[in-house]
């Protein structure tokens, strides 16, 4: 079960902007095990979505470019395969779900046509068979009266139903890997619960791996086995969900976990804050990117970016001072 299905090795992705070239993803490595969920968590601008776009080779063109590194998937290096080849992999072997389902659906085509298109593109089947499988897929993602829904347009569905359709499309060809970028951020909490359950159920049935990108630590804790914490384009910390939540080692991870209000914190008590804000990608500091907000920062932190160091098996952190940090109270 625990063999990696996707391996990112030192991925570097850059963007050309009016103000110069920025490095949105800088030396990111992680691997996703078959059948498992890897959560990527971080705040806006941390590079989590660009990482997903790099894997899918869907970077905004011509600005976005994978500069170096490897994305190993099923014997291919997605960082360098031809676009032609990528097109056969995308949809068939890697599915994707985005935050806003309305932008992923074509408003002038029926649900059925859009679903069948995915199947017809990747499988040698008849139109009739494609429609039959579409109904089956809609049923699987919990859409009531799927044969009627097939003839409807995206605007006739609610947000949660639309996201279900997008998931049905992403999973139509039974991909080995699903990339879900903030799949529930636009949804209400009761609908979010439905969609997360759905992804989990389908994952179990189909044995696929999931990369779940979110800013919500609660969603990560509920769904992921492995967690990658990103900050300003770099991996701050990664490990199993228990490593990261029980033994957060990077000062940023600790800050994040301490700053979220929880149901059991005393109402109106002062929340721990991470002072300041994320540095802009155009003027990144030379040393550790978290240095200007870090309580533990010393002079050496501002000289060079800290490399990942192993905390325990499978748990690594990019911080010079992790040995010196106080124990986290359990």
């Amino acid at each position, binding site marked *: 079960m625990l063999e990696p299905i996707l391996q990112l090795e030192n991925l570097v992705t850059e963007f050309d902007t009016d103000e110069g070239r920025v490095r949105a993803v800088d030396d990111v490595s992680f691997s996703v095990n078959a059948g498992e969920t890897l959560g990527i968590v971080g705040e806006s601008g941390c590079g989590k979505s660009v990482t997903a776009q790099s894997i899918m080779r869907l970077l905004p063109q011509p600005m976005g470019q994978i500069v170096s590194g490897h994305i190993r998937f099923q014997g291919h290096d997605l960082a360098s395969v031809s676009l032609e080849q990528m097109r056969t992999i995308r949809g068939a072997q890697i599915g994707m779900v985005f935050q806003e389902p309305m932008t992923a659906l074509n408003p002038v085509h029926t649900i059925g046509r859009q679903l069948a298109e995915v199947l017809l593109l990747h499988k040698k089947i008849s139109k009739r068979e494609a429609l039959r499988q579409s109904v089956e897929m809609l049923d699987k993602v919990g859409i009531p009266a799927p044969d009627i829904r097939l003839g409807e347009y995206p605007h006739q569905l609610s947000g949660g139903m639309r996201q279900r359709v997008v998931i049905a499309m992403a999973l139509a060809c039974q991909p080995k890997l699903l990339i879900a970028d903030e799949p529930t951020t636009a949804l209400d909490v*009761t609908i979010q619960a439905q969609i997360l359950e759905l992804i989990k159920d389908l994952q179990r049935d189909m044995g696929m791996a999931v990369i779940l990108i979110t800013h919500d630590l609660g969603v990560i804790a509920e769904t992921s086995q492995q967690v990658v914490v990103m900050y300003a384009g770099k991996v701050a910390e990664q490990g199993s969900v228990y490593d990261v939540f029980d033994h957060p080692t990077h000062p940023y991870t600790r800050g994040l976990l301490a700053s979220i209000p929880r149901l059991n914190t005393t109402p109106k008590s002062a929340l721990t804050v991470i002072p300041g804000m994320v540095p802009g990608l155009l003027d990144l500091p030379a040393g550790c990117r978290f240095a200007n907000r870090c309580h533990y920062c010393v002079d050496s932190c501002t000289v060079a970016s800290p490399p990942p160091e192993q905390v325990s098996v499978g748990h690594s952190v990019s911080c010079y001072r992790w040995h010196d940090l106080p124990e986290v109270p359990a």
Partner: protein
Amino acid sequence: MTVDTQTPILEVRDLKMHFPVKEGVFMRTGKYNKAVDGVSFSIKPGETLGLVGESGCGKSTLGRCIARLYQPTSGEILFRGQDISRLSRKQLMPFRRDIQMIFQDPMESLNSRHTVGDIIEEPLLVQGVGNRAGRQRRVLELLDLVGLPARSVSRYPFEFSGGQRQRIGIARAIALNPGLIICDEPVSALDVSIQSQILNLLIDLQRELNLSYLFIAHDLAVVKHISDRIAIMYLGRIAEIGPGEAVYGTPNHPYTQSLISAIPVPDPHQRANRVVLSGDVPSPIDPPSGCSFHTRCPRATDICREQAPPLALHGAGVAQTTAACHHI
């Protein structure tokens, strides 16, 4: 707490806001969107009432009615004892000082062509407070209060980050020493690490200035943290209202129970045993008969389909809340 003995700063009685829905070629009004459909509650000085619900439950509309950005269809809004629900624009002027709003997206609610100094000074100008020098002193005082440097005065909103822009919005809202601030999703557009900074600021300001908040948000953990009491809305009505600890700790209404069980907990050891609700929120244009929650409710029976349950007290002591359900 001492606030309990005080008279409420705001009391809302059976408030309704029905928007006409224009249909057909002749744009006739056939149906009404009953966004707010009979809501009553009160807020005491220095208190925060959290207002929670899913999209379309009417929580923002309710906030806007109280700020009198809308003219409610019926019901009373008693502010410091006086009904402001029917006042004209001119009559409302003195109340505008006292009731302020903070919005979700500070970029959209701040005029991008005005300097931060102008933006914060504007409410003072409109209400004719002090002279120019006095107003400018006040602006600097306000910037300091919300934790922005004095040099921000001559800058423009786009030069600030999301969190700082929200600080500007807060400075503007407290400029006239209001009694009540309606916070409509004030932190939902912000990153996690910035969210806590703004929440702390709102809590500190409340203590310093004895502000009352109506805090509208969909993030249940955030609302729990900042509120004294919490109201849960569903399809234009209050499903349950009570002290924060009781509503979250011992919820009585099945909707509150499922809402709270749906919150993802940031602790991998506590993967929730949740009551996953089926289906979506029905449309407020054609709400279900009886209890509007019956279409999604695990406990629904015939009476729920026929009669809307009234709000009543349930539980005892610290676990007591007011909830509208036939089956508690």
